[in-house]
């Protein structure tokens, strides 16, 4: 048993720090350098508490609760300590809160409001620090730094880019990238949230917003199959800022830079009216038209070209839309294509990640097949890296195109010919599969090679009784939903096609074919389309972006997630499923 603020709690054998336990019991202890995701440094000293019997006060973040301890977190001594330590922290801190972007959500501001004193006794000269450049996302104001070293630990332990360090010593110690190293990472933006003061800020939203003007919406991000949970902040019907959602297990309070700045892409070249685009004498002409006319045009060309009607599905379509697409493809006899190839088996385990994010630390050996986890799923990659630091017995192998990662990969250089001819004896590299159990992460892009590889591993199983575990990592959540609905897809073999119906909220199309007539159901006019696709006549129908109406999505772990309307769209843009229903009804009535 031990005593915390005159209350008795039962002592458990599980080691716990004072700060973590008091969080459970809803006792607030202020902290700067402590962060749940990072290792404990214990250098800010603001979390000191009084323990009866010890001469000096102790830091709550690093002391473990012992039997019979008597702890006070709100005594007068503790209040006095906090006031004095805040005075020390504020010695070199400039008084520029009115022009600081962090104001309103700054830990130092809040704590000095609650615990701080009203004046400073410091008369001597203040320390000055040269400014730094990290990145084009991060705005650095190094004079505001209080040397909590959270950013150093984040760069070392999670981002895997050790570029920051504590240079110098004593009073003159400063955090700097000595050789002017840059922070090049997919998850560099998180350093903005991790900094407790205004030293590291968002460069893109600088001087544009204040924390108290914004409305918060819980939402998800679709640029990743993980479907990261995010907090979207809006101001006057515009998305202004995106933050990671706290208290969630899926992305551990971290998000990728893509998720942080996804809204910037959506603002460009928005389509508001349906229009026709045709190429006449090497000139591109645009003509606005009404909704009625555009649907009539649709069926005019639809009836003309009976033979090949193709529907192309791209990213960020929600589950309800896909169900309508499935109906449509049966009724209107569309052939469906998408860039994801169909799997052979309909068993759900074949297209999901079969482990929880919590059980990642139980994996011992990893094998990556034709996959670059750093780019596609960087949050999962961070998770593996973080476990790798703590435990050294990881075996990580990879096959396919060699990509550099933040941790060391043992790359197997196996030629495609070797795999095609199934010369097992020559593949001495694959002996690793006989020794240990592996967790195999794969992608479904080049299925021909992959399947032969699977056969080979199964043959190797004759020598050992180990069952390897297979995990599927999809690119986006639509891929998972396509497998769930088992939508058939067709390979495009010919050069010329007549009719294409394309639904994609925002992405590039990757078909190098020629079409006579194309319907783009699209929210943003994308000039890159013309590089990959050639056509005679195109009809553009404006739709809502995925966060402008309700949508249901499925995760890589097959977790159902919902996006609510974050922003109200303009009158003319219509949701995907409404357009699809109108086409269906029109077809039924006027056939």
């Amino acid at each position: 048993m031990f005593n915390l603020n005159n209350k008795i709690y039962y002592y458990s054998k599980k080691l716990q720090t004072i700060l973590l336990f008091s969080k459970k019991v809803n006792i607030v202890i202020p902290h700067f350098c402590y962060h749940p995701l990072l290792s404990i440094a214990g250098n800010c000293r603001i979390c000191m508490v009084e323990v009866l019997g010890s001469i000096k006060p102790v830091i709550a973040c690093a002391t473990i609760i012992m039997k019979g301890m008597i702890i006070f977190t709100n005594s007068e001594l503790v209040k006095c300590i906090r006031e004095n330590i805040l005075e020390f922290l504020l010695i070199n801190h400039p008084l520029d809160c009115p022009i600081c972007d962090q104001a309103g959500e700054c830990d130092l501001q809040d704590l000095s409001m609650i615990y701080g004193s009203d004046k400073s006794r410091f008369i001597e000269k203040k320390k000055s620090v040269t400014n730094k450049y990290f990145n084009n996302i991060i705005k650095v104001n190094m004079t505001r730094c209080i040397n909590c070293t959270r950013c150093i630990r984040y760069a070392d332990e999670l981002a895997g880019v050790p570029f920051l360090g504590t240079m110098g010593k004593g009073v003159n110690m400063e955090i700097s990238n000595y050789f002017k190293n840059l922070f090049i990472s997919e998850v560099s933006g998180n350093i903005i949230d991790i900094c407790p003061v205004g030293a590291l800020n968002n460069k893109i939203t600088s001087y544009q917003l204040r924390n108290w003007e914004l409305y918060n919406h819980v939402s998800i991000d679709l640029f990743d199959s993980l479907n990261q949970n995010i907090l979207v902040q809006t101001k006057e019907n515009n998305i202004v800022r995106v933050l990671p959602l706290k208290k969630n297990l899926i992305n551990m309070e971290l998000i990728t830079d893509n998720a942080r700045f996804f809204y910037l892409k959506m603002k460009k070249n928005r389509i508001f009216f349906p229009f026709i685009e045709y190429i006449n004498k090497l000139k591109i002409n645009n003509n606005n038209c009404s909704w009625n006319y555009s649907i009539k045009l649709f069926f005019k060309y639809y009836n003309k070209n009976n033979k090949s009607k193709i529907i192309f599905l791209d990213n960020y379509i929600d589950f309800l839309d896909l169900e309508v697409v499935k109906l449509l493809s049966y009724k209107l006899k569309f052939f469906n294509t998408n860039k994801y190839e169909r799997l052979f088996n309909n068993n759900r385990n074949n297209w999901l990640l079969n482990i929880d994010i919590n059980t990642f630390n139980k994996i011992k050996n990893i094998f990556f097949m034709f996959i670059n986890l750093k780019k596609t799923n960087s949050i999962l990659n961070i998770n593996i890296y973080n476990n790798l630091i703590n435990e050294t017995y990881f075996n990580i192998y990879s096959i396919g195109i060699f990509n550099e990662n933040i941790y060391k990969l043992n790359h197997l250089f196996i030629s495609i010919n070797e795999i095609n001819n199934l010369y097992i004896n020559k593949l001495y590299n694959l002996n690793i599969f006989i020794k240990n159990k592996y967790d195999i992460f794969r992608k479904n892009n080049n299925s021909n090679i992959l399947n032969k590889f699977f056969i080979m591993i199964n043959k190797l199983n004759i020598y050992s009784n180990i069952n390897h575990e297979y995990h599927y990592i999809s690119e986006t959540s639509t891929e998972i939903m396509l497998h769930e609905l088992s939508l058939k897809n067709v390979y495009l073999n010919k050069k010329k096609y007549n009719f294409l119906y394309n639904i994609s909220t925002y992405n590039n199309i990757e078909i190098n074919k020629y079409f006579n007539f194309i319907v783009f159901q699209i929210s943003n006019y994308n000039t890159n389309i013309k590089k990959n696709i050639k056509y005679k006549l195109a009809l553009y129908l404006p739709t809502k972006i995925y966060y402008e109406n309700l949508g249901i999505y499925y995760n890589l772990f097959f977790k159902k997630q919902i996006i609510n309307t974050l922003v109200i769209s303009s009158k003319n843009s219509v949701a995907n499923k409404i357009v699809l229903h109108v086409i269906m009804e029109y077809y039924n009535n006027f056939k």
Partner: protein
Amino acid sequence: MLSRTIRSVLTKTNKCFVNRTFTNCAPRFSGNALLEHVDTDDNRSELPFDFTPHYWEEANKILAKYPPHGKQSATVPLLDLAQRQCKGYVPIQAMHKIAEICGVPRKQVYENATFYAMFNRTPVGKYHVQVCVTTPCMLRGCDEIMEALEKHLGCKNGETDSEGLFTLGEMECMGACVNAPMVVISDYSNPPNFSYDFYEDLTVESAIEVLEKIRRGQKPTVGPQNGRPNSLGPQGRTSLFFDKGSEVQKPYCRDINAQPENKEQKK
């Protein structure tokens, strides 16, 4: 606090050097004051760097002390070797080479090189003169010596003189407080040989004389300059008398190589 109270006492008695006050003192560094790398002609990451065979031998001796997973412990001794080879400073390309040898991220070597005041990150002269400025030396008048040396060499603290022979610098306590004030001179003039000598019990005149002797090519006597042996007091030896010829009694120490006895066998 201690230095502040001493300051207040000293100003009352008017014994003190008045120029430097604690409120206005500049941050103390030895060598490069900037905590950022600045490219120069000799100090660039593009330049190749490797230890010479002589220094590789010593480096291998150092690396052999540590197990393969603990190579990072060798960063500080290797930085010292690199400083001797480059005549008094560690260029950035040497730091990168050391990071490669020890298998640590580069920033860890930067941290070490900036933390320790004995590593210089900008070029120095052939002789690096460092004056101790911690409390006992300060009480015995190190500031006067500093001033005198600045006047004599014609350069300020942290700079090299016009000949490129001497570099002036500050240093924190060297542990020779009994013989305060003192000066350390590290000799980089003939590379494989390196010396790091204390000159103690200085006055303004004797400090200048030490430098003049070095300039003339002579070797000044190492240790106290006022003629007393080691750190002996004015009364001579007052304790620890030994008869002539008798051995000094060593404190008791158990035989480290002996194997522990088995208690059961004794019974």
